[in-house]
């Protein structure tokens, strides 16, 4: 079992997965864009501006999910000191930061036609900016601190403290009076979004997830090569 999870086997699987994602990605992207921009109906209240949802919502979900994943893996790494977990968190963090920033920018572009302003210090928006700051601190601590153990400890603390912000983001629209609308899609309970919009949204989410997986695998592969390169010098 342990042998299956060594870097050499992971490397072989990464190559296979990258090839598989590359083979289906563009067909799915084309389908998702067609549904998002052409076939899905405009909203009865927001009109065509609702189409921004097809990039804004998946970007927000990925921003939140990535940080939760980083925090949980950092805690596990802090306790069990598994080297692969550090490689995983290091590879996920830039993707999470990118999609958090995309979520903020597209949210701002959606805010102008909907609320009449690009920016407001609203609870949801502010907590998303704080999430982006936590991502930034996590990445900087990994890059600037040369001592690996120290970098590990500090980045784990940043991720654990940042985890507190995740439920704040999720429930900010319920706890405070905000401009941001409450969630339309609920895991538990019925969603308030029509299937003609839900289907394109889930398709776009799948495409963005595949893109994230592709970037993650490429970054992870780079990290494995970096380690192997170090080991080669010991020969």
């Amino acid at each position, binding site marked *: 079992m342990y042998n299956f999870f060594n*870097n*050499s*086997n992971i*490397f*072989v699987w990464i*190559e296979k997965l990258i090839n598989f994602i590359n083979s289906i990605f563009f067909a799915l992207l084309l389908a998702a*864009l067609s549904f*998002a*921009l*052409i076939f899905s109906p*405009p909203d009865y209240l927001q*009109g*065509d*501006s609702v*189409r*921004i949802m097809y*990039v*804004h919502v998946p*970007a927000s979900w990925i921003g939140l999910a990535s940080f939760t994943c980083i925090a949980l893996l950092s805690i596990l790494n802090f306790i069990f000191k598994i080297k692969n977990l550090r490689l995983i968190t290091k590879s996920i963090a*830039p*993707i999470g930061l*990118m999609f958090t*920033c*995309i979520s903020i*920018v*597209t949210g701002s*572009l*959606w805010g*102008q*036609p909907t609320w009449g302003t690009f920016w407001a210090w609203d609870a949801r928006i502010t907590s998303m900016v704080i999430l982006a700051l936590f991502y930034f601190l996590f990445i900087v601590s990994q890059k600037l601190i040369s001592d690996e153990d120290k970098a590990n400890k500090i980045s784990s603390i940043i991720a654990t403290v940042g985890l507190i912000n995740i439920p704040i983001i999720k429930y900010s629209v319920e706890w405070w009076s905000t401009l941001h609308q409450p969630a339309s899609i609920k895991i538990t309970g019925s969603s308030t979004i029509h299937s003609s919009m839900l289907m394109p949204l889930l398709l776009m989410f799948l495409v963005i997830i595949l*893109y994230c997986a*592709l*970037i993650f695998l*490429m*970054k992870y*592969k*780079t990290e*494995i*090569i*970096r380690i*192997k*390169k170090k*080991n*080669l*010098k010991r*020969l």
Partner: protein
Amino acid sequence: MINSLIFMNGYGIFVWSSFIITFLVCAIVYYKTSKTLKKYEKEFAKEIEKLSAEQRKIALEKSKVASKVFSSYNKIV
């Protein structure tokens, strides 16, 4: 049809900006990540090439990663 797709009843600027920013950022990150990966693969393969024949043989036998990267680099060269 094309006009309504571009202008989207006055919302076109916001919708298209959102999609263009998202996909442009994604394309740039993909390009940079792939470039970094190729750079590391190339550097790694070159370091294997620098080893003596005996050391190279040991390295390639011991590590699947080294043999994969080295063989794909030799195919390109």
